[in-house]
C-alpha cells in the first residue's frame, strides 16, 4: 500500500497578538514571580570567546512607525562558527554561549537590544563558507506568520562578497537591508522594515 509521504500538514500559524510578552517575556510586562528570568535574555552564561557585541535596532511598519510590541529571536553560531546544538558535529561550541536570544522591543521606544558575540563563519550546504551572520525571527500583532531574516555585518565586506546567499540575491539593491552597520566599538545597528521602501529581505527557508 502506498502511503502519502506528506502524512500531516503543518499546524497553521496565527499572529502572536499584542500580548505575546505575557507568554514569552512575562517579566518585561510586569508579570513577576512565575518565571525567575525570561528565557533568552542572557545569551552568555560565563566568559565567552570572541568579540562581544551589542546589536540594537528598531522594527518599522509600512508607515515608518516603530513596531513597539515586537518580539525578536536570534540564533547564531559562536565566534568559531559552531552551534550550541546536539547535532553540531564539527566541534564543541563555546559552552558559555547559548547562541539563542529573545528580546522584546522597548514598549515605549520600540528599540530592541541583544548582547551577544560576533559569529564565526559557517559552511553552506556545498561547503563554501558563509559570511558571519545571525538568523532573526520576528513576531508581533499583525504578523500572521513569523518572519525569518538574517543579519550580516557591513564591516565584513570581503566575506559578504563571497557569501553564497548574498551573492545569489537577484535584487542586489536590497542587499543593504540585511547589513548591520557598525556604530561603535562592538556596537551594531540593525533596523528592520516590514514593508515599502527599504523593505528588509525576508526568507522562506
Amino acid at each position, binding site marked *: 500500500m502506498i502511503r502519502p*509521504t*506528506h*502524512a500531516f*500538514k*503543518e*499546524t*497553521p*500559524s*496565527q*499572529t502572536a*497578538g*499584542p*500580548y*505575546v*510578552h*505575557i*507568554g*514569552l517575556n512575562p517579566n518585561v*510586562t510586569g*508579570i513577576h514571580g*512565575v*518565571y525567575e528570568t525570561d*528565557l533568552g535574555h542572557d545569551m552568555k552564561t560565563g566568559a565567552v570567546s570572541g568579540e562581544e557585541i551589542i546589536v540594537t535596532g528598531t522594527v518599522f511598519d*509600512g508607515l515608518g512607525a516603530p*513596531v513597539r510590541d515586537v518580539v525578536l*529571536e536570534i*540564533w*547564531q*553560531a559562536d565566534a568559531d562558527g559552531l*552551534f550550541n*546544538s*546536539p*547535532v553540531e*558535529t564539527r566541534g564543541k561550541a563555546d559552552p558559555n554561549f*547559548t*547562541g*539563542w536570544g529573545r528580546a522584546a522591543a522597548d*514598549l515605549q521606544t520600540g528599540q530592541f537590544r541583544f548582547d551577544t558575540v560576533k559569529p564565526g563563519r559557517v*559552511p*553552506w*550546504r556545498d561547503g563554501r563558507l*558563509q559570511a558571519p551572520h545571525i538568523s532573526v*525571527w520576528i*513576531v*508581533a*500583532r*499583525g*504578523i*500572521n*506568520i513569523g518572519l*525569518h531574516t538574517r543579519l550580516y555585518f557591513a564591516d565584513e565586506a570581503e566575506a559578504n562578497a563571497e557569501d553564497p*546567499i548574498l551573492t545569489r*540575491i537577484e535584487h542586489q539593491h*536590497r542587499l543593504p537591508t540585511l547589513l548591520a552597520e557598525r556604530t561603535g566599538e562592538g556596537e551594531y545597528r540593525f533596523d528592520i522594515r*516590514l514593508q515599502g521602501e527599504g*523593505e528588509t529581505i*525576508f*526568507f*522562506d*527557508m
Partner: protein
Amino acid sequence: MKNTPSAHAGFMARDRAWHPPALHAPYKTSVLRSPNAPLLSLPTSLGEETGPVFGPAMLGELDHDLIHNYAEPGESAVGPRIIVHGRVIDETGRPVPNTLVEVWQANAGGRYRHKKEGYLAPLDPNFGGCGRVLTDENGAYEFRTIQPGPYPWANGGNDWRPAHIHFSIFGSGFAQRLITQMYFEGDPLIAQCPIVGAIPDRAAVETLVAELDMTRTVPMDACAWRFDIVLRGRRQTIFENRLEGL
C-alpha cells in the same frame, strides 16, 4: 539517538497556501505589517536546521500549572479548570521530543494581565496567564489552566476573539519555529474572527480547534481538551544505509 535530526537533512518546504498570508485586510494590523515583496526562497542550512535546546532544569515546578503558578499560596485562578494536552509531531508523523511549548491566554473573564489591555472585565489576582512545558520522549505535553473567556477587540466595529490559548513551539530546528492559537470546539465566535479568517482553508482552521476529551477529563476537577500540533517535517536522511528512524 535515532530521533536526533541530522544536520543537512533539511526541512520540507512550508505550504504558504495553508498558512495565513501576511496581508489579510479584515485583520487591520496586518495591512501595515506585511511584507510586500515575495519571500526569498532558500534551502535550509545548518543555522536553520539547528536550534536552541531547553532542559527540565530551566523550568519551574509549577510552570505547566496556570491555575497555581501565579496564585497566592492556598489560592487558585478563577474559572472552569481544564487540562490541555496533545502531541507535537512533524509532518511525517515523527514525535518531536523534549521541545519547549509556551502558552499564554486571557483569564476566565477574557482579560489579559497587560497594562495596554482595555477590556472592562476584571483582572483575576491569582492568574498570570503564562505557562510552559517540555514535550516528553513521545512528543506529548500537558498543562492545566482555566478556560479563557472570549473578548472584544478594536478592529472592526464589533469584533470578538473566540476563547483561545496562544502556543509557541520550537521544534528541533530554528526553521520550525511556530506560533499559533488553539480554539475550543463548538465556539460560534471562531467563524466570525478576522484573525482566524486569515487562514484560507477551512480544513486548516479545523486543525486549530481542540476537541473535548472525556477520556482525560478528571471527574469533579477538570475537563480535558486535546490539541495536537504538527511542525514542519524533516526530510529523511540515510544513516548507515538505513532510513533514519527505521
